[in-house]
């Protein structure tokens, strides 16, 4: 189980970093999502892996650490919200600029001035 989990975290993180380095916003957002999946599983594993154990002392022979589960829940909610914000911004940026490149060039800033954007 350890090997499976470790390689899953590795693959998720690898995919995330690869996609994050792309030039367009959509792959970047996907990459960040993969990275947050990877970190969530990693966070979960920090409480050690146990099978068939309740997160309550006395209900089973061993017990699962309940704290990482709470941490993961918090992290999932936060990364979900952040991804939604980023998605809205990306759509807004795409609609304004007409393309979804991540980089901002000096030409874009000149465009802004021409079209009366806020300095």
């Amino acid at each position, binding site marked *: 189980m350890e090997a499976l989990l470790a390689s899953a975290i590795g693959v998720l993180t690898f995919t995330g970093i690869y996609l994050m380095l792309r030039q367009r916003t959509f792959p970047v957002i996907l990459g960040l999502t993969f990275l947050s999946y990877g970190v969530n599983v990693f966070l979960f594993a920090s409480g050690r892996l146990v099978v068939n154990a309740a997160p309550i002392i006395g209900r089973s022979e061993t017990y699962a650490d309940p704290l990482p589960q709470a941490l993961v829940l918090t992290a999932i909610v936060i990364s979900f919200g952040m991804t939604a914000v980023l998605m809205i911004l990306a759509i807004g940026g795409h609609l*304004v600029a007409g393309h979804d490149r991540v980089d901002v060039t000096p030409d874009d800033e000149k465009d802004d001035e021409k079209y009366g954007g806020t300095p």
Partner: protein
Amino acid sequence: MMSHWIIAPVVLPAMVAGLMVIAMRGDLLLQRVASVAAILALNAIAVALLWAATTHGPEAYFLGDWPAPFGIVLVLDRLSAMMVALLSALALVVVLYAIGSGWDRRGAHFHPLLQFLLMGIGGAFLTGDAFNLFVFFEVLLIASYGLMVHAGGGTRTRAGIQYVAFNLIGSSLFLFALALIYGVTGTLNMADLAAKLPTLPEGDFALIRVAAVMMILVFAIKGALVPLQFWLPGTYANAPGVVAAMFAVMTKVGAYAVLRFGTLVFPASLPATGDLLSTFLLPAGLVTLAVGAIGVLGASTLPRLAAFGGIASMGTAFVAIAAFTPQTTVAALYYILHSTLATAAMFLVADLVTRRRAHARLDEGAGPIAQSGLIASLYLAAAVAMAGMPPLSGFIGKLLILDAFRDQAPLIWTVILVSSFLMILGFARAGSTLFWKSAASDTPAPEHPPEGLAFIATLALVGGLVALTVLAGPISDWLASTANELHQPTGYIEANQLGQER
């Protein structure tokens, strides 16, 4: 007892922000009144907390009354009280400027977002739990995303995407570090970590070192330390000027966190990490200072000039932080106070200028601007403060740092002095283009409303810098006790009452 007031800097902005969104939606006047009233109350609370921390020493607030390593604690000590006071003072200036300049009218929800930002930053300063620090980082970040794209615009939105993406990577790194620390030690309470880490078996040293380095990376992203400073110029230069001024305290969250972790959790006496933090931070701080100074010299627009000035000031602060001795910490704390006010003043002046000009570029003149005499004087004051020239507090701050690094004078003195010179050149060149070349043309300045409140807010920042200069003696005495408290964190650890029944 002050006890319950410790959570007020978190609860008050949260309540006010929620109330604004629910009950004052669309009523800007009511929002303005509520926002200013809440920030005035926050200032009063901050002063009371500062007094409590000075007289009583560190004090913990147990959320839900859970005992320390199990529940979340907020800890008030001199450093966190000072940072909350700095935050609330800056917030007052920023909200007055936003009202005076009409920035809060140019998009929805400026005031609620500002309150949520205050909640996040205040919480980050007060929390005594590493995971809670992550949560407050996210609170302040999500509010800052909203503020960053306030009033819209194509470039601003797209610069906002970079900012959000960069910080999401930072958040993931933070989570990796926290998971490592929890996996090794089984706790995330900062005082408990300080108590448990020295007894760690040698086999776990490597994991804790990795976690410590990842923590530094996260705080370096927040504090815009080279090589992780790339997000700052684009973000701050494209954010509304008033928001950029508020963000001046956000980079200090990174500095605060490094200071807190470097003295409490990973002190140099810890066998697992040793002087790992200073090994990385000192060169990074020096390079940051150099990059900031060169950026000031080469900046193409006025907001970028202010942003690079901000990077340079973070570099200076990190150089002073990195040594982790009481004497250098005093210099670092003084410089943090100074550079927050100075950077904010520079951004406000940059905003005053760019809103009166056809464009923000520095390479060509753009005709005279309204109220140019007063703005030029404010620019002069902000530039003097940023470059660290006498008579303002930047000079005293740099003097304290130079004095603290007597034994490493050849390298550190050279970098600080040469970069100060570059910054003087950069600010002088930009000022002459902005005010003298513009004034040379015959066209009359276009009409612009006087905006008295905006000028009062900017003047208040300059007044703060003057006060920091005049009161440098008492302030540095107070900071000396703060630095001692930081470097002997027994009081902080005892305040958590670890392992005691409540």
